[in-house]
């Protein structure tokens, strides 16, 4: 399946991937409104940039074959779609116990908010878009969206 890969050598620590991921998942019409939503709770990007100068790297969900997060989810909110292979979190079922956060081996799940409720938030590979927003936003082609033959 196609996944987002980050080539750490060319990540320039600009965080545009985070900004455009957030915008893509926000109901707000544009970036400015997306960053200052009416309910005052700043939305969380589903990709995050690690910084350890001079190096930096964007980390997002690997959509594992046997995702530990789905295995440890007590409410069945986190499931791996059998057809697309994408691991999705259902905000209505999530009770924010953060078990998923405590087992995701690369720390790709974050504490977010949907309709004011705390829920787990993770990369959904921007369904409905040709290329994920983060890959499209990366100015240095450090993020690529490709199928490397891993299941």
């Amino acid at each position, binding site marked *: 399946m196609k996944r987002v890969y980050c080539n750490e050598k*060319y990540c320039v620590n600009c*965080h545009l991937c985070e900004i455009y991921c957030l915008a893509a998942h926000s109901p707000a019409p544009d*970036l400015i409104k997306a960053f200052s939503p009416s309910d005052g709770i700043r939305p969380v990007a589903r990709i995050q940039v690690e910084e350890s100068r001079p*190096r930096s790297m964007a980390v997002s969900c690997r959509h594992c074959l046997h995702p530990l997060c789905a295995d440890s989810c007590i409410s069945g909110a986190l499931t791996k779609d059998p057809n697309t292979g994408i691991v999705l979190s259902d905000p209505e079922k999530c009770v924010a116990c953060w078990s998923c956060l405590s087992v995701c081996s690369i720390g790709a799940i974050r504490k977010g908010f949907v309709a004011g409720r705390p829920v787990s938030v993770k990369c959904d590979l921007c369904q409905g878009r040709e290329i994920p927003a983060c890959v499209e936003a990366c100015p*240095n082609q*450090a993020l690529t969206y490709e199928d490397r033959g891993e299941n």
Partner: protein
Amino acid sequence: MPRSLVPPAFFVERVTTRCIKCGVCVRQCGFSVHAQAEPYGEVVSTEENCVGCQRCVVFCPTRALRIMENVHSVRQHPNWTAGVIHDIQKQAETGGIILGSMGCDKDYPIYFDRLALNASQVTNPAIDPLREPMEVRTYLGSKAPRVEVKRSGVTFRLQKPMPIGIKLETPIMFAAMSFGSISKNVCEALAKAATELGTLFNTGEGGYHADLRKYAANSIVQVASGRFGVDKEYLEVARVIEIKMGQGAKPGIGGHLPGEKMTWEVARTRMIPKGTDAISPAPHHDIYSIEDLKQLIDTLKEVTDYKKPISVKVAAVHNVAAIASGIARAGADIITIDGMKGGTGAAPKVVRNEIGIPIEVAIAAVDQRLREEGIRDEVSLVASGGIRCSADVLKAICLGADAVYIGTAALVALGCHLCGKCYTGKCSWGIATQDEYLSRRVNPELGVKRLVNLVNAWTLEIKEVIGAMGINAIESLRGNRLHLRGIGLNEVELKVLGVKPAGESM
């Protein structure tokens, strides 16, 4: 020193209603202009540091930033311009030479913009590039005076082999920019792009990085006055060897790469101790006359078993025609003329702006002189310094060049915004820097695509234009000054360029 009198060169205007405080500009500015107390906190800017490289403007996701040049820093005065005044202030505060990078920024006339190209019409048709192959392939290196053939049955065979010729699929090459002044990623992008385009790249005087030797078949390696990185393997692996006698941006002076930029990798490639300043003296301290140069040319030919063309690069100075004639007679196969508007990583601003002549007149003069002496075909002529677009390439070839180098244009393709601060090594675009946090900003894979796109675009334009001229092979354009007309040039300029005024027919 107390407070500097030099006003900020740029003002940072931040539209606060648009700023989402995301900190992109803070992290991207190589000159630490923007700052943020804590994540998503208020962003403030120290305008003195700004060099106007537009990195923040380009990266700001909400277009909240504008960098404006401070044009009202002095009372308007025709003689005492802002530039002159600020230079005096700086030197009064530092007592040192004002450094500059990139090319001459004085508004000398740009002859390229005063020359118009021709088109064929009615009496002979233009050639349709969509139907006919437009041939821009060029060979660099000296040409044989004549071809001797032997008839064997119906076909013919070459009796005497030709001197080595380097095939360029397009008459555009990447200019000499040393590893040390530019980052390794940029070197790799240039090398790989040249290989993909079937043209050459020049390593510059900084040696040839071990990792890039796989592109050696398209490389021109430089032997400069510092002899940096020159050893047996360096000469053997290269396709062309170029003796650097001068550089258009700084004729008559040497080069200086400061010790701070001398990282381990740069030092290893230059074969000098880490941390030392890399000084390439002017002149070569073993070439004080044309015969010494001939000796070096012969030595290089001998060492490489006469398998590689030897090029000599000189700056365009007043007697460049005589120099070129001497170089040709000294056995060089290729002469590179670097005009005064050529770029540099670091040079005293006064040298960069005031010494040398523009490439247009230099090429015209050299081509004319070599033709008069009947030795034009013993060498290939390469124009360099300030080539900005495909029209410049065409006009340089019409004036007599076999091919051109692009340096600054290539860097602009990779993101350079000509802020002119390469000498600081803090280039926010990751080009003229060895700082790993910055140099990763040029992804060679992306860089190659951009460079290949640029050269392909220019080559397509060249094919379209020569088609319009009714020519389908670049050989017919070389030295074909009849296809140029001068616009707004005076009598003397027309004569030097060997070009008729617009309005005068063939």
